[in-house]
């Protein structure tokens, strides 16, 4: 076991110059953002753009989005294990590596948002006081942490067996795979409920929020996986069958259709009879009381999503790598805006007392966020590097080593 870990870690830091430059580039961003986070710790959250009026900002926006990316790994897991698609099974571990990175990032985004990260231990059951099952935030901690463990444990088991040249026993890991599937849906549903559980915030207080979260996750997730798999195919000797990308593109198309339908349903309900309920959505799309800083962003996001959907719905365009990639980037960015800032900020505008106060993230927030993204990408790179080496059979337990270790 220790041998496996050491070999894996060694593999992570072995590579050509370009690989090292990539790692250094990401580490530099992490270091810069880490230093900015230090400033935030020293001076308090006053260095962010947040206020009593808009008390959550860019951090929580990224958190909500990334939970969706993490959940979307299930779109590889289901076809791989339930429909026995061998082509997808071949890349499923890459997808789970992405889930690990995404769920870690989302947890980091919550931690950097805390006013007292030194008191994080208050959440640990028994020594702290964990308000579960009442608090939705407690639920979110449980499901995110569980998802992280599942997505580490299953690949670990599979890879460890492969490393030892053994065939993993389906019977021992399949139940966990099934659990992970339901768990994936749960993490994003609970994250949606975290918002929709608040009657104080009419903008979020809709039963559609959960379904919307899942739909947008299943559009933005595959978009990222499609691009990542192509990069993996290009920079490594790992084979990624085109049929995988085709399937993901199809899922993404349907998910984006549903997502835009949900957006339309929301717009109709709020705007047809414009009650007090509609103030936030009015602020988001049209501006309110002369404040409209999110307006250009949401229209931009909506346009990106619509154009992406048009590309995806035209068969020849979806099949061509270039146009498909354009659609993926558009959908990814579009949904990042729509369900990041576009979802979180209007919940606070106007305030429950009707005050309109705008929020703009500060440089510190942007750099800390960049650092977390870079950290996630770095994590994924390292995980994928080791996974591919084991999957390709390059990394195997040496027979001579085996004698020295009881496994």
């Amino acid at each position, binding site marked *: 076991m220790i041998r496996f870990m050491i070999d894996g870690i060694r593999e992570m830091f072995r590579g050509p110059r370009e690989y090292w430059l990539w790692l250094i580039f990401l580490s530099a961003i992490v270091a810069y953002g880490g230093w900015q986070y230090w400033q935030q710790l020293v001076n308090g959250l006053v260095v962010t753009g947040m206020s*009593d009026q808009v008390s959550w900002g860019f951090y929580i926006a990224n958190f909500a989005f990334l939970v969706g990316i993490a959940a979307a790994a299930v779109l590889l897991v289901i076809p791989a294990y339930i429909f026995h698609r061998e082509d997808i099974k071949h890349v499923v571990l890459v997808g789970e590596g992405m889930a690990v990175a995404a769920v870690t990032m989302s947890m980091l985004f919550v931690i950097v948002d805390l006013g*007292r*990260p030194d008191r994080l231990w208050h959440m640990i059951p028994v020594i702290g006081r964990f308000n579960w099952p009442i608090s939705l935030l407690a639920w979110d901690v449980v499901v995110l942490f569980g998802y992280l463990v599942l997505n580490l444990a299953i690949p670990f088991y599979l890879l460890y067996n492969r490393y030892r040249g053994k065939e993993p026993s389906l019977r021992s890991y399949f139940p966990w795979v099934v659990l992970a599937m339901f768990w994936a849906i749960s993490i994003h549903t609970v994250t949606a409920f975290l918002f929709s559980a608040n009657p104080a915030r009419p903008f979020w207080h809709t039963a559609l929020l959960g379904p919307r979260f899942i739909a947008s996750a299943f559009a933005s997730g595959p978009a990222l996986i499609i691009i990542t798999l192509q990069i993996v195919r290009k920079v490594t000797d790992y084979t990624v069958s085109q049929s995988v990308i085709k399937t993901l593109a199809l899922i993404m198309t349907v998910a984006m259709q549903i997502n835009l339908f949900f957006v339309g349903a929301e717009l109709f309900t709020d705007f047809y009879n414009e009650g007090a309920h509609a103030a936030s959505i009015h602020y988001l799309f049209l501006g309110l009381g002369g404040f409209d800083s999110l307006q250009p962003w949401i229209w931009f996001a909506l346009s990106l999503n619509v154009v992406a959907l048009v590309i995806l719905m035209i068969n020849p365009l979806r099949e061509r790598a270039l146009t498909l990639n354009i659609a993926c980037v558009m959908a990814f960015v579009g949904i990042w805006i729509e369900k990041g800032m576009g979802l979180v900020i209007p919940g606070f505008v106007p305030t429950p007392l*009707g*005050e309109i106060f705008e929020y703009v993230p500060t440089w510190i927030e942007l750099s800390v966020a960049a650092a977390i993204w870079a950290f996630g990408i770095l994590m994924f790179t390292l995980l994928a590097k080791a996974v591919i080496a084991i999957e390709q059979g390059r990394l195997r337990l040496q027979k001579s080593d085996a004698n020295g270790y009881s496994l």
Partner: protein
Amino acid sequence: MGAAKPAEEEDKVDKARRGFLKGLGLGGAAAASPAWGGQTFGDAWADFFQKHYQQMTREEIQETLERIERKAEQRYGVAIDCQDTPPQEGVVFGYAINISRCKGYRDCVTGCVRENNLGRDSQVQYIRVLQMDRGDSNLENSEHYYDPAEVPVEGKYYLPVQCMQCDDPPCVKACPVEATWMEPDGIVVVDYDWCIGCRYCMTACPYWARHFNWTDPEIPAEEMNPDTHYLGNRPRPRGVVEKCHFCIQRTRKGRQPACQEACPTGARIFGNLLDPDSEIRYVLANKQVFRLKEDLGTEPKFWYYSD
């Protein structure tokens, strides 16, 4: 922020503490606690491992209260008295405001700020008085920062809003670490030493009653109110949420809340909801009262009425 404050004595023990915490990988703790300034290793240690208020023994509470007094002395140069007066039997507090008497002077706001040691720089205020157009009760049309030469302004009326001490408080449900709860006398309190600063309670509150210490609350020494309560107006650290607590340090000793005392028009009625002879019960029985956002089902213990 360290530079902005007067140089604090950093004895060797304190430096050792920082080095030690760093060694433990608790950089966050070391960084977040200079709010209290040069405290001893023992105090820092006790701070970090302090238990939830409801889980402390009598002795532990006593030690904590003494530590709070020490820290206030170090930080603000004021000797404060920090108590934790328990709730009285058979008392549940309620509030009512006569909006036809409120003239928008905001003396309640000033009285509250002084009584409750609210951060002057950070400008936290528990009470917000909304200026409304007569004939309109839509909060979205309210004026929060009205500043005319003279109040009341013709054609306007005034609606003071603060924590409603809901009987089914959504903020309490939201807190992931049970750092906020409802006391037996109906007051929703915060353990400032347990709050992790996630601000989910602020998101959950329909009355915008919760406020966050984005920075260190600064209070001039001469304006510090030394009569404090653990769950009330004692000095707060940075990075935690606070809110109106019906002046728990006063009301549990039978005094009026500061906002009621400050109000020059007598618009504010405070008292024991369980006492059938109390003024608040008279108001509830004889006036046409309403509550804000009653449809949300939070059961505020805060009513409005007019003559």
